């Protein structure tokens, strides 16, 4: 065998034995690129995802909710940080990734282009959006790239807290006054379908699926993961006593799953392509904060360089 063929065969044997590829292992260029795309998109989603919930940070209706929400948003930032670090092991810098986000070259989860209009939306996001994210992330704990898989293990633990806090907000509202029940139902109605869209297009339409599955960058298909989420969410809606937004979501004893109505894919692509309420706002917010912080980063660098020079001067 040639060297190159040996490398590929070694790489493929690691994958087939369900072991992890580590940063210093040889990997095909396309595997590296695909992972960078997936991990950085995931990191950007965590970071952009801080905004819709942050929109309610200063208006949270109790001190306990305020503290919990702040620490949840902080966790999301922390997840962004681990994920950027995991992606950096593949030879890309955080600056490059942030630049790609800001120019629109890299994507983030389109769900965050939806506006949070009421306090109940914070509950719906924690419960449904984080809930959908966990379903996906649990399967990613077994993905083939070591640093990413390990980041997922840690992130999943925190996300399940997030989902519980979201559900608890919904539970409190749905046991509350008529007006509270109304805002809870409204939030569920607005966030249910976009949450199903988070799993991406049907498998038959998914651009990256087949190869990602073969490389174990993805472990389960979009449709299988979506079904899991639908199955876990239906009884949760019942407990809340709210109306299910999908009238076709009925238990099918033969399949052992809930059925689901057709997703409005036109809306999905429309929001991805820039027609969501917040697409421009989310990016501008990120760019503004980054630009406004430029002088601080420069000051920090300049200070450290001066210190370094001073210590060289002392040493020589």
């Amino acid at each position, binding site marked *: 065998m040639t060297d190159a063929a040996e490398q590929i065969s070694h790489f493929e044997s690691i994958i087939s034995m369900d072991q992890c590829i580590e940063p210093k292992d040889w990997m095909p260029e396309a595997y590296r690129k695909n992972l960078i795309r997936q991990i950085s998109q995931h990191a950007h989603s965590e*970071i952009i995802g*801080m*905004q819709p919930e*942050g929109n309610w*940070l*200063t*208006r*949270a*209706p*109790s*001190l*306990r*909710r*305020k*503290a919990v929400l*702040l*620490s949840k*948003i*902080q966790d999301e*930032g*922390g997840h*962004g*940080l681990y994920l*950027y670090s995991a992606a950096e092991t593949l030879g890309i810098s955080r600056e490059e990734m942030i630049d790609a986000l800001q120019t629109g070259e890299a994507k983030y989860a389109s769900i965050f282009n939806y506006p949070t209009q009421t*306090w109940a939306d914070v509950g719906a996001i924690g419960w449904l959006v984080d809930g959908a994210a966990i379903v996906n992330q649990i399967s990613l704990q077994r993905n083939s790239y070591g640093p990413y898989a390990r980041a997922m293990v840690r992130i999943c633990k925190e996300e399940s807290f997030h989902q519980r806090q979201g559900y608890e*907000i919904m539970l*409190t509202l749905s*046991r*509350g*006054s008529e*007006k*509270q029940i109304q805002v809870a139902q409204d939030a569920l109605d607005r966030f249910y379908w976009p949450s199903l869209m988070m799993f991406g297009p049907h498998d038959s339409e998914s651009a990256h699926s087949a190869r990602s599955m073969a490389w174990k960058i993805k472990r389960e298909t979009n449709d299988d993961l979506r079904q899991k989420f639908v199955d876990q969410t239906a009884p949760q809606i019942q407990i809340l006593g709210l109306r299910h937004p999908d009238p076709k979501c009925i238990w099918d004893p033969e399949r052992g799953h809930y059925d689901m109505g057709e997703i409005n894919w036109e809306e999905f692509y429309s929001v991805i392509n820039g027609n969501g309420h917040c697409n421009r706002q989310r990016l501008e*917010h*990120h760019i503004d*904060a980054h630009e*406004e*912080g*430029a*002088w*601080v*980063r*420069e*000051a*920090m660098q*300049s*200070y450290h360089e*001066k210190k370094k020079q001073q210590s060289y001067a002392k040493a020589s």
Partner: protein
Amino acid sequence: MNNADLQGPSSRNQQVMQYAIRLGDDALVLGHRLSEWSSKAPFLEEDLALSNVALDYIGRARMFYGYASELAADGRTEDDFAYTRNEREFQNLLIHELPKGDFAFTMVRQLIVDIFNTHFLHQLEQSSDQTLSGVAAKAIKETRYHLRRSREWITRLGGGTEESQQRTQKALNSLWGYTPELFELDELEQQLCNNNIGVNNTLLSAIWHQQIADILTEAGLTVPENSWTVKGGRSGYHTENLGHLLTELQFVHRSMPGLEW
């Protein structure tokens, strides 16, 4: 309140409750301002750190208000103190309510408040009131860490670029007139001080001035002149900023009053 009211255990409770509310107001208003940095900090690590400090303050507000509600013993909760009082009833020191400004403004305010709090909380730890002393013992650990951060930042910003130096000096100049209020003592605080419950803020002034002057000088910044002073927070005489802060903070809670959240 006449002097006769200040005798006996129930009036003592009233006084301590007022004191706890004030300290809760300081912590809540500053915690709220710091939370406004979420997703807006100069870089990700700093975003997380500012949220940490904000969380410490919100936690502190809950401890003080929680104690106030115990002492009130009339069913009022921590949220009643935070969400149903008006601007004139809030008694935080004015420096806490000023808008977050740029990063230099936020860090200079933190430095001012962190130095103050290390001494204030150290004294409060000696309080004959067990609960206040306990809260102080927990809070001072956080504050020591906050001060390490704000001190490092001021050193870096002062010794960084020309722009950072200018921004930091400007922040310092616009905050300086709010610092004398930290060292005031009104009648209530004087009484609590006499009873070994409250802190004598006037005694903290000298050490605070000494310490901040050392840090600023080392950072290449100028200690501003004491040319102006704005006061009144402890009697509910606020800047226009607090009303807007409370409008936002209290909006949901007040729009559907008396409910569980």
